[in-house]
């Protein structure tokens, strides 16, 4: 099968980017979207051109590295998948497919479709952990956690840190990302002692790094490949308010 791929090219963080359109041929029906880009890159290299840079690694939807905005949607036109789990069967043969990097001030472009997401690491460094050292822990069964609580915590912990929520939000807010971590830990007894401090510190860091505010459009939830819901944002808000009141 054949496609036209209109893709964002940008040499580095400092240069100005632009779209280029390429024609890619001989794509197998069962190929994934990233395999299509591999084929296109093979073609470009053989033509003496510069291949398209894009982040990817596990190719099974768990590492969170892939990060493409495809035809106006984060991770493309399928639900609850990362780009590496998107397959060409979702595109009509001959279609023109537009591919862009995440667009957010907090995620500057490194090259072509590759962006810098270190802001996410910095938010987690601000408090996305439980302060425990190796060797301190008591027996795992000494902390009882009801089945459903563990499942709720796991729902939030499923976040892969890809940044689709930020890329799809009109405000460029990282609320869903922050909420996923805060909520996952706040639900568990082990996470409670630091819950307030954690919420405050992570929200403050998010603001400092230039992410926008949440206006409850729920676009993040729609595009989250791991179906992390805005319920967790509600829990983050509760934790944040509790922290403010206790000041």
């Amino acid at each position, binding site marked *: 099968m054949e496609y036209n791929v209109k893709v964002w090219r940008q040499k580095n963080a400092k240069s100005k980017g632009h779209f280029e359109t390429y024609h890619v041929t001989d794509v197998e029906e069962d190929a994934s979207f990233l395999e299509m880009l591999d084929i296109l890159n093979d073609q470009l290299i*053989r033509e003496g051109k510069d291949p398209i840079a894009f982040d990817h690694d596990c190719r099974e939807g768990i590492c969170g590295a892939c990060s493409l905005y495809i035809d106006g949607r984060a991770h493309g036109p399928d639900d609850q998948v990362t780009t590496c789990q998107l397959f060409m069967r979702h595109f009509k043969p001959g279609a023109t497919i537009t591919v862009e990097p995440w667009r957010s001030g907090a995620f500057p472009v490194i090259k072509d479709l590759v962006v810098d997401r270190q802001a996410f690491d910095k938010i987690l460094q601000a408090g996305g952990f439980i302060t425990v050292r190796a060797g301190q*822990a008591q027996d795992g069964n000494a902390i009882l956690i009801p089945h459903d609580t563990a499942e709720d915590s796991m729902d939030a912990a499923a976040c892969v840190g890809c940044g689709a929520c930020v890329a799809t939000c009109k405000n460029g807010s990282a609320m869903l990302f922050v909420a996923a971590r805060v909520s996952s830990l706040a639900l568990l007894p082990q996470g409670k002692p630091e819950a307030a401090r954690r919420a405050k510190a992570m929200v403050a860091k998010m603001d400092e790094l230039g992410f926008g505010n949440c206006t409850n459009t729920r676009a993040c939830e729609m595009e989250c490949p791991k179906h992390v819901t805005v319920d967790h944002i509600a829990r983050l808000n509760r934790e944040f308010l509790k922290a403010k009141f206790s000041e």
Partner: protein
Amino acid sequence: MADNKLVSKIPDGPLAEKWTKRKSEIRIVSPNNKRKLEVIVVGTGLGGASAAASLGEMGYNVKIFCISDSPRRAHSIAAQGGINAAKNYQNDNDSVYRLFYDTIKGGDYRSREANVYRLAEVSAAIIDQCVAQGVPFAREYGGYLANRSFGGVQVSRTFYARGQTGQQLLLGAYASLNKEIAAGTVKSYPRHEMLDLVIINGQAKGIIARNLVTGEIERFGAHAVVLATGGYGNAYFLSTNAMNSNGSAAWQCYKKGAFFANPCFAQIHPTCIPVHGEQQCKLTLMSESLRNDGRIWVPKKMEDVLKLRKHEIKPSQIPEEDRDYYLERRYPAFGNLVPRDVASRAAKERCDAGFGVNETGLAVFLDFADAIKRLGHQRVEERYGNLFQMYEKITSSSPWEEPMMIYPAIHYTMGGLWVDYDLQTTIPGLYAIGECNFSDHGGNRLGASALMQGLADGYFILPYTIGDYLSHKFAEPKTDVSAPEFDEAEKAVRERIEKLFAVKGTETVDSIHKKLGRIMWDYVGMARTEEGLKKGIEEIGKLREEFWKTVRVPGTNEEFNQELEKALRLVDFFDIGELMARDALNRKESCGGHFREEMQTEEGETLRDDKNFMYVAAWEYKGDGKEPELHKEPLQYENIKIATRNYKD
């Protein structure tokens, strides 16, 4: 006889007391001196992240490096099914000894007793540590931790977080790492690739790394270096490893004098989604946990096979009596839960006999119909929901309606850098942990034990043992990165890079890597022969020559350049592949994942040769184009009765 270059430093005394004894002998470093010491950790998977976090907590100055944009993306994240620990929470008579025994037996009696016992001994504390970090392990309704079973064992000792256990454990270790980064004890260098080890006066003192964003070649010094860079399964091109997983950091250490042990021991995982076409670059694993409830089969009748291939019938239409549940038939005691190497070979046997169920003839069924009937939709959903979804997204076929199709694929490498009991390589000051060393899994790793080993090494073993080395170093000043040894290493790295750009050929790196993968799979894959291995070595040599004549690496070094990254890794994969073949050729026996066709029982099972091969094969680099030298570390089993692995009764 023991080789005098391989001093394993296994403590004397009874097995159960060895680790306690060693810990009491290990010198420790006082808090004020820890502050003066620097440690480099390369890799941020379970081993690297947990080691760096623990060393930071102890007060050392740590620098940690990873090739991805964030430490959280290391390939440990993709582990699905679970982590083993001898907690005996199920009251099924599990114990440290039983976990030790299962691991030694699963590894087909080719791993070190003392190391494996220690692994089992610290396993319980790993679960406690992870719970304390907030890892949301599956819980029973009473709030207690849940367990499931994995291959090669008869107890339920596997802890899990849905089908995302690796992700959750890594996020736990990454959180601890973040805590230490915030505290200032650890400095993180993402998008940095180690390209060489720097040795001064015979000791590991630093690394040369390429900044993957700018292309700058940078120098980093320390008092010790810890390698946690995973395995080399991508030598086969198609594997379940992440695209960027590679063996280069370990390989560069090998070229600097670290011995490489048992390179031929590669694990082929039985339950992966079959290859769909020529353009594929990655295989997807379906967790071993699925074998708890899924049943593996192919049709008994060839006519059904042919109809399936033509899509004339659906698998669910084949009546029960016409199905061959071949694992249950051949291995009644363990059934679908035999170890990975056994399950993989059995699938190959059926497919070689012509019973493969898809167009390529390289697939068998993994069926959940019985489990859904027995447990109900909701419980199956809770256990495997995300795996079913993943399978459906990739194949557009629903496991709720028709069985999955699976086939074996390269998954893990048991071989790696040789280490002593302290996890130190043959280069003083260079340590290797996790998949990147060889020590714990012998010829075959049991499921849910990779996560256990990564975290055991990182949280509880290395942070103690490295102290013994560092206790002699606190008086030494910080490593001077302007030393001539750094100049030399950097120069060599730059030459390697320039040489690649200079070829200016027409072939892409991936197209050549694919060819290497085919050679590896055909000659160094699931069934190996003397003739095939010799042919494989020859073919790798030819392909290497072709590479140096025809490869095209576009762009320059001074930019973000993924083709250059891949080319540098492929150069090492040629060498790694060759050493794997050489080691497989030397090991004229079948054991674990290493199957020499000449050495099998009448029933097609592995046939070990304990008299001649009960040793660790550690290879020493002797120069490019020269044959490496083999050193042997004899394996002694004092606490376990050596037997033929039996999963039948």
